[in-house]
């Protein structure tokens, strides 16, 4: 079974600063997909960014970027120029090409200080 670990229960960042969230995973597969989802308080979870394991280039979506280290099985999320609206719980998730289940980490709560 795949295991996704987020070792930081909480992170705090000053508005306009940068914060990096950690995620590691355990798998014997060579091809898979990694995701970061954002879950604001009492609101629905939305996909922030997605990385395909066979792509060496790190994915970027506006202020969100990842550092994908396949050998280390590490998939961190960097939020640049943090905004108050970035405050949420962030989940790292994993899925193989032949599966439909997402395996989630326990989440990291991000607070943004004005």
């Amino acid at each position: 079974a795949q295991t996704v670990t987020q070792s930081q229960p909480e992170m705090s960042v000053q508005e306009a600063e940068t914060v990096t969230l950690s995620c590691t995973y355990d798998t014997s597969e060579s091809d898979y997909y990694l995701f970061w989802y954002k879950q604001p308080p009492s609101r629905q979870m939305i996909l922030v960014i997605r990385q395909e394991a066979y792509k060496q280039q790190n994915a970027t979506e506006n202020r969100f970027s990842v550092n994908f280290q396949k050998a280390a099985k590490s998939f961190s999320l960097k939020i640049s120029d943090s905004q108050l609206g970035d405050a949420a719980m962030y989940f790292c998730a994993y899925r193989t090409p032949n599966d439909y289940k997402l395996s989630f980490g326990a989440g990291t709560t991000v607070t943004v200080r004005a």
Partner: protein
Amino acid sequence: GAGVSQSPRYKVAKRGQDVALRCDPISGHVSLFWYQQALGQGPEFLTYFQNEAQLDKSGLPSDRFFAERPEGSVSTLKIQRTQQEDSAVYLCASSLASAWGKETQYFGPGTRLLVL
């Protein structure tokens, strides 16, 4: 267009009561999922539908949990004889076609169930 909707948003049940949680996926989405999210944890898979067929129910914690999607659109998760350990947020997600690989799952806002 409209996203995934769930109702009710909050449900308080007395232990032993039956509850029914509804999910309206995005129109035209073939795949539908239910996840259970305990407080402070990530979602955990419960069950998966492709159209009206329930292809995987391996994550359902007990036979008190039952899910259906009779016409391939709206789905209902039913919990019989609720227990305190059933207290959680129940998330529904849908995806357009097959649910494999990089296909995006779109989540609803969840139903927060509290069993007293």
